[in-house]
């Protein structure tokens, strides 16, 4: 099974690489691990890399929206890395494409 979450750190940045499927079931543990890293490291930037995600439903959108709020709480910015065309479509549906920065590597 694809590793669900890999956390790494670079200076003032926390990088959360999510793999596999993001549904309501898996989002619970991914969310708590990212939040733990966020509040422990207090970074300036949180990067969520979803390039290895092969399925996501609205629980994934909720996960991203929630991390945006948590990042704001500590004065950090959120960057969404490697979203697929499908994920971008869902971000647009929720209007998140206008408020979340995205990048490709």
């Amino acid at each position, binding site marked *: 099974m694809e590793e669900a979450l890999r956390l790494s750190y670079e200076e003032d940045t926390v990088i959360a690489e999510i793999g596999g*499927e993001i*549904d*309501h*079931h898996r*989002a*619970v543990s991914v*969310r708590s691990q990212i939040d733990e890293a966020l509040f422990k490291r207090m970074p300036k930037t949180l990067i969520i890399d979803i390039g290895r995600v092969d*399925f*996501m*439903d*609205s*629980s994934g*959108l*909720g*996960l991203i*929206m*929630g991390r945006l709020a948590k990042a704001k709480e500590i004065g950090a910015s959120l960057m969404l890395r490697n979203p697929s065309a*499908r994920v971008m479509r*869902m971000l647009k*549906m*929720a209007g998140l494409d206008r408020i979340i920065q995205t990048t490709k590597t």
Partner: protein
Amino acid sequence: MPKKALNEIRCTFLSRSENEALARSIISGFLLPLDPTVDELADIRCAISEAVTNCIVHGYRGTVGTIVLDAKSFDDRSVRITVTDRGCGIENVARARMPLFTTCPDEDRCGMGFSIMESFSDRLSVTSAPGKGTRITLTRKLASPLKGST
């Protein structure tokens, strides 16, 4: 000429969150012999995941009940999928279907479940009665295998 049913399944499972992935696997197994496009399969898997999550998060909130997944395919390449729970029901279906409406914002629910189900199906109907449960029915016509893309 009325369309003819080709295949039909009914599965019953508990409203445990690990069964969200199970429901997606079941519907994939049902659809694959129909030769859907990659996008069609992904759309329907996502819509079913939303419907089942709705049963777990809202219908049976904090309790465990049963979810029934029915799927039926027809000779015009349409499929009709129904997800039914006997949970708490929805008081105001029209409000629940509004984009970004959620009753649990503190749990990272974004209120896009019904919007995604609507977007990924040709037709979506929601019937619900408070205290009795909710039934979500989506229909989607698959492209011809010869004309299908992706």
